[in-house]
C-alpha cells in the first residue's frame, strides 16, 4: 500500500540549535502512529513542518505522494499542544468559522457540526459562548473543530492533557472510531503509557533524533529480557531444581529469567508436579518507559 505521509531526512535548525535532526518515517493509511519523546525532543517542531506552519530546512515531506503545499493543511486535522478557542465566540459560530477555513462550504460545515454535536449529546450548545463552558467541555469543542472537515491525517499533540478520565475515554473511543473509518492518526505525547494501549507503530525521538521506530509489539519483543512472573498459591519449599534463574522472590511471587522462551512450559510442569497451584503466569514485557531509557543509553554510549 502507498504511504499517506512520507517524511524523508527532514531537519530543522533554530540558530545553532538543531530541533529536528535527519528524521525519516512513513505512514500507511489507517495507521495509528505514536510520536514519543520527552519535552523538547523535537516532536512539535516536526509536526509544525508537516502542517506547513514552519518551513523545512533540509529534506522533504510528501503527503499522498505529493510534496506538501498550501493545499495540505485542508487535508490535515491538527490539534496543537498549545490550543484554545475564541473565548467570546459562540460554539456554533466558532466551529463554523474553523470548518470554513478548512475549506468546507457553510452548508456542509453546518450539517457536519450538527452531527458531531449530536454524537457528543451537546446539540443545545450551539448558542453558548466558549467562556461559559468548563475546560473539559471546551476540549470537546476543540476536538470537534479538529476533525469536522474529515481530515485524511489527524495529528494530536498531547490530546489528553487537561482531560478528566471520562472525557479521556470519550476522546479515545472517538480516535479508535476515526481510525476504523480509515483516518491516519499521529499521536504525539511524552507520556509513554498512554501510547502503549493505543498505538501500533511508534517512533521514539530524543534531542531531535529518531532513536527507535517500528511496530510496538516487535520493539517490545526486541527489548524483552526473557523475564517471567509466576504467582503461586503457597510459598514453594524447594526451588533448587527450577529451570532458569530466579531474579526475585517475594513470598509466593517469583520472577524468573529464562535463557529460552521454550522453557516456560518446564516451569509450569515443575510446579504442577509438586502439586502447587498456579494463580498466574506471564511474560514481563518492558514498558515503553524502560525501552526509552535503555535506547537513550544505547545511543549515548
Amino acid at each position, binding site marked *: 500500500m502507498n504511504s499517506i505521509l512520507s517524511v524523508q531526512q527532514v531537519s530543522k535548525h533554530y540558530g545553532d540549535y538543531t530541533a529536528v535532526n535527519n528524521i525519516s518515517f512513513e505512514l500507511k493509511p489507517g495507521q495509528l502512529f505514536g510520536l514519543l519523546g520527552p519535552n523538547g525532543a523535537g516532536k512539535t517542531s516536526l509536526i509544525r513542518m508537516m502542517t506547513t506552519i514552519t518551513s523545512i530546512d533540509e529534506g522533504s515531506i510528501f503527503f499522498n505522494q505529493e510534496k506538501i503545499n498550501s493545499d495540505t493543511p485542508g487535508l490535515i486535522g*491538527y490539534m496543537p499542544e498549545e490550543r484554545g478557542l475564541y473565548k467570546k465566540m459562540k460554539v456554533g459560530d466558532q466551529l463554523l468559522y474553523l470548518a470554513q477555513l478548512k475549506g468546507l462550504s457553510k452548508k456542509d460545515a453546518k450539517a457536519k457540526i450538527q452531527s458531531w454535536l449530536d454524537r457528543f449529546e451537546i446539540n443545545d450548545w450551539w448558542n453558548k459562548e466558549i467562556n461559559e463552558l468548563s475546560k473539559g467541555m471546551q476540549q470537546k469543542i476543540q476536538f470537534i473543530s479538529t476533525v469536522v472537515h474529515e481530515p485524511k491525517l489527524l495529528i494530536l499533540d498531547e490530546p489528553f492533557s487537561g482531560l478528566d478520565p471520562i472525557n479521556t475515554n470519550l476522546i479515545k473511543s472517538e480516535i479508535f472510531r476515526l481510525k476504523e473509518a480509515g483516518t491516519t492518526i499521529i499521536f504525539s505525547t511524552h507520556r509513554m503509557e498512554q501510547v502503549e494501549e493505543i498505538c501500533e507503530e511508534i517512533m521514539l525521538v530524543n534531542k531531535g533524533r529518531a532513536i527507535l521506530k517500528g511496530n510496538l509489539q516487535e520493539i517490545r519483543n526486541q527489548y524483552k529480557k526473557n523475564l517471567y512472573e509466576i504467582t503461586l498459591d503457597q510459598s514453594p519449599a524447594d526451588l533448587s531444581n527450577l529451570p532458569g534463574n530466579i531474579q526475585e522472590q517475594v513470598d509466593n511471587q517469583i520472577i524468573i529469567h529464562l535463557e529460552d522462551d521454550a522453557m516456560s512450559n518446564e516451569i509450569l510442569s515443575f510446579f504442577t508436579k509438586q502439586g502447587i497451584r498456579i494463580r498466574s503466569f506471564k511474560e514481563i514485557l518492558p514498558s515503553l518507559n524502560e525501552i526509552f531509557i535503555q535506547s537513550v543509553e544505547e545511543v549515548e554510549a
Partner: protein
Amino acid sequence: MKNLKLIIQREYLSRVKKKSFIITTLITPLAIGLFIFVLGFILSYSDSEKKTIAVVDHSGIFNKPADLAKSGNTSFELVDATVEELKANFEDTNFDAILYIPEIKNLYAQSHTIFFYSEKSPSLDLEMVLSNRVKNKIRNFKIKELNLNQKELDALNTSVDLDPEPISDTAKDKSKHTNAVAAGLGGFMGFIMYLTVFIYGMMVLRSVMEEKTNRIVEVMISSVKPFELMLGKIIGVGGVGLTQLAVWAILIPIIQIIASMFWGIDTSDINQLSMDQAGIDQEDVMGEFSMIMSEIANQNWWSIIPLFLFYFLGGYLLYASMFAAVGSAIGDDMTEGQALTIPITIPVAIAFYIMIVTVQSPNSNLAIFSSIFPLFSPIVMPARLAFEPPIWQMILSIVVLIGTCLFFTWVAGRIYRIGILMYGKKASFKELFRWFFKQY
C-alpha cells in the same frame, strides 16, 4: 483569498456585533450633544437672584432713563441720598447694593474709581456690566464737556482687513477667511487621524495579544497563513474604524440639530453671549459667519474627502501593522509590551505636534517634509489639504506612503509569523530584528 475574506468577516462582525462597540458608537455622539447642552447651559447661566442696586451719582453722568435700564436680573434705581445715609438705613431699604460714582473733577484723568457697597462682593459678570456702562457714560460726558466732535472721534476708529490676492490672474482669489477656515478644517482632520491611528492601532495590538494568550493562534495557522491572519485582522479592524467614523459623521450633526431644537439652546446663543461681553456688533458677526460658511462650502470636497480617506487607510495600515508585529511579540505580559509600544506612539505624537504647527504655516519646510515623510504624512498631510498643497507634493506623498505601507506590512508579517509561536521569550527590539531575518 477565500480564507482572507472569512477572517476579515469574523474580525469585523465579532467587533461590530459586540455590545460595547454599539454602545460606544451610539453614546459618543450623545455625549457630545450632552456636552454642547451643558456648555450652553453653563454659558447662559446668569445670576438668577433679582437685585436692585441703588445708584448714588455725584458725577451727573446718569441722566437719561435708558442709563438705568435693567441688565439681566439686576435693576438700577437712582437715589438722591448720600452713601452714608443709605448705609445707615440699609436694612430698611430694599436695595441689595449701592453704587457710588464720585464727581469727575479732572476731565483729563484716564482713570476713575467708582465704589460698590454690598454684603457680598459683586460677581464678575456684574462688575463687567457696571464698569462698561459707566465707562461709556464717562466717555460721552467727557466728549460733551470737552466740546469734542463725536463724528471726528468715530473717524479715529479704523479696522483693517487684510485680503490676500494672488499675483497671477489665473489663481483663485482668496477671501480673508480662507486661511482660517483651512486651518480649522486641517486641524480637525489631523486630530481625527491622530485619534483613529491610536484607537484602532491599539485595537489590533490587543487582538493579536489575545489570540496568543488564548492559544488559538496555532490552531488558526494550521489552517491559514500567518500573513493572511494578520492582514485579515488589520483589514477587519480598519473596517470597524470606518464604520464607527461613518456613524459618527452622520449622527453627530443630527444629534446637534435635535439637541438645539429640543432644549432651545442654539450654538449661536453661546456666540451671542460671548459677543455681548466682548461688545461685538451682532450684525457684523452674522456677516462673518455666513462668509465662513460659504468658505467651508467652497472647499474642494471632491478631492479632500477621498484624500482624507486615503490618508486614513494609509496611516492606519502603517501603524496597525507595527502594532500587530509588537502584539505578536508581547504575549502574556502586558507591562513588558508597554515598553515596546512606546517607539510606535512617539512618531504619532510628534506628527500631532507638527500638525498643529503646520496649520499655522502650511508651506514651511517642516510642513512640506512632514507631509511627505511616511510616518508623519498620514497626520500632517490631511491638515494641509485645505491649503491646496502643490500637486507634486501630493503625488510624492501618496507614492511614498503606499510604498511604505506595503513594506511595513511585509516586515510586520515576517515578525508576526515568528512572534505568535514564541512563548515565554522576553521580547525586545533586538529580538524582533532577529525574527525579521529568520527563515521560518
